[in-house]
């Protein structure tokens, strides 16, 4: 996959209004090529509206969009020829088979798209069911067929809106592996999802959107990773709490303590203090901030500020 653009998606002050309501509010987004990018936000935050604007499904009120180096809407045809997408729930003609639905989609793409139908079906594990009517498919199978359709254009960029809806845990795991496989091939995958744990496991970078605005954007490592604290559990947490009061220790739900620790020497000092006091240390580990915690911190802060 030859990806020549450092950013596969760039938006500048992108805005969408529905009457007086601003659904997407001045979004500046840069999605690096060859990565899995998560787009997160609570329901009604404007995620799908932004995706619909990127794909030309709805008009832009103001601002600029560039996809794969092509300005939109003037370069729409060239850009979208190399984009595969699932927007909201993938939809099909239910009276047609899975393969026939792919033939319809391939007809709207370049001639080579027809030659990719079999391999796309195989890739999503639908080869054996390809000649059944879609109305007999489960929701999960329709999601897979949607991915197969998105792959027909041999896309540099995949934009998937809640693609894991309807998948069972095993399906989600397989889906994650497939996403990573696509990224390993040099493609860029943009994933909009409310499954924060899955996004954290799948994506390299994320943007969190709330009330139409991107409130934070960065790599998963920047936004999660180690907190400036350690989690401590001992044979006598009451005594440990008293011993570590000078460090700012606080009790946490479910037992144990959270102790602020900016560096390794502080952590070593905490450990020494406990051991010298004769306490059995059962646990002493850096606290990690999960994406879910970061997401809730950000969105609840915004709610409080509103």
């Amino acid at each position, binding site marked *: 996959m030859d990806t020549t653009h450092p950013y596969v998606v760039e938006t500048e002050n992108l805005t969408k209004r529905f009457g007086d309501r601003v659904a997407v509010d001045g979004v500046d987004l840069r999605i690096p090529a060859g990565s899995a990018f998560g787009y997160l936000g609570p329901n009604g935050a404007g995620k799908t509206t932004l995706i619909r604007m990127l794909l030309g499904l709805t008009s832009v009120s103001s601002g600029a969009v560039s996809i794969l180096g092509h300005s939109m809407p003037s370069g729409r045809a060239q850009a979208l020829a190399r984009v595969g997408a699932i927007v909201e729930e993938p939809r*099909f*003609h239910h009276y047609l088979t899975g393969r026939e639905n792919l*033939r319809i989609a391939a007809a709207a793409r370049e001639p080579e798209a027809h030659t990719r139908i079999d391999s796309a079906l195989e890739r999503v594990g639908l080869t054996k069911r390809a000649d059944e009517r879609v109305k007999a498919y489960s929701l999960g199978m329709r999601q897979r067929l949607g991915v197969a359709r998105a792959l027909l254009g041999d896309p540099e960029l995949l934009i998937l809106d809640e693609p894991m809806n309807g998948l069972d845990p095993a399906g989600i795991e397989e889906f994650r592996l497939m996403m990573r496989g696509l990224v390993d091939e040099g493609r860029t995958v943009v994933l909009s999802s409310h499954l924060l744990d899955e996004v954290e496991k799948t994506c390299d970078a994320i943007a969190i959107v709330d009330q139409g605005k991107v409130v934070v954007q960065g790599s998963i490592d920047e936004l999660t990773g180690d907190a400036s604290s350690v989690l401590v559990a001992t044979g006598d947490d009451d005594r440990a709490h008293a011993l570590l009061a000078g460090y700012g220790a606080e009790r946490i739900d479910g037992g144990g303590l959270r102790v602020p620790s900016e560096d390794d020497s502080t952590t070593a000092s905490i450990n020494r203090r406990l051991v010298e006091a004769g306490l059995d240390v059962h646990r002493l580990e850096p606290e990690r901030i999960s994406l879910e915690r970061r997401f809730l911190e950000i969105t609840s802060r915004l709610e409080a500020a509103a």
Partner: protein
Amino acid sequence: MSALVPAVPISRPRPFSFPRPRLVTAEILKLRKRRGLVITTFVLTVGVTAVVYAILALLHTANAAKNGPAGGIANLGSSMLVLTMLAGVCASLVGTAAGAGDLSAGVFKELVVTGRSRRALFAARIPGGLAFLLPFVALAYTVAAVASVVFADSLPAPSVGLLAESGAWVLLVSSFWFAVALGLASLLGSRSTTIGILVAFQLAIGSLLAAITMLGVGRDAIPGTALGRLAPHAVRDRAVEGVSPPMSIAVAVLALTLTIAIVLGLGARRTTTRDA
């Protein structure tokens, strides 16, 4: 979901077929796989025509003194009236399926995100729908034409010229109503609403308007009137006598052309501007 496999294209030998634009082929596929539409179109065109002539032939056989031959020019005219009315209904069904099928299934957005122009998506529906509809109508007309000659008996059989003229007219009527249905369905985005409007217009409203002499030359714009003006004499003598206003062929052609241009134009415009 299976483990990842390389995206290797698999080529299959394909039966020979004349090259057709892929979008048009896709439109035909969408229509011919609608089992209900295929059955309804076949029954209302070929089925009804065959049954009508079969009944007429049986009646003549049973009592030749009372019931005339099933064939001949007059019966061809009558069967053309029935066929064009039912073909108009079928054209409405097919046109609305072509015009609003992708939208109602939610597939339109899936086609738009391919980057293919919306105008091209709309344009492909026209030849695709006609390629589905007209073979049924042509087959039904063939049944009528053959029967009108074979069962003519003592009556004058229609000439080759009249048969050709009648066939062309049936195809014209079907194509016209298909185009109107396609444009209107694309404009409204609703198949059922469009079918209701068109069937009501074809079966009742159009005839009522044509009968209101106060409308004067405004009646020239009524599609049924203009189509009637272009009908072969064998049909016109039976169909529009006393109802249709006097109208030149040029005015009829102009009225039909403008109607198609306006309705298809509005449908195309809506297709290119609507939120997908």
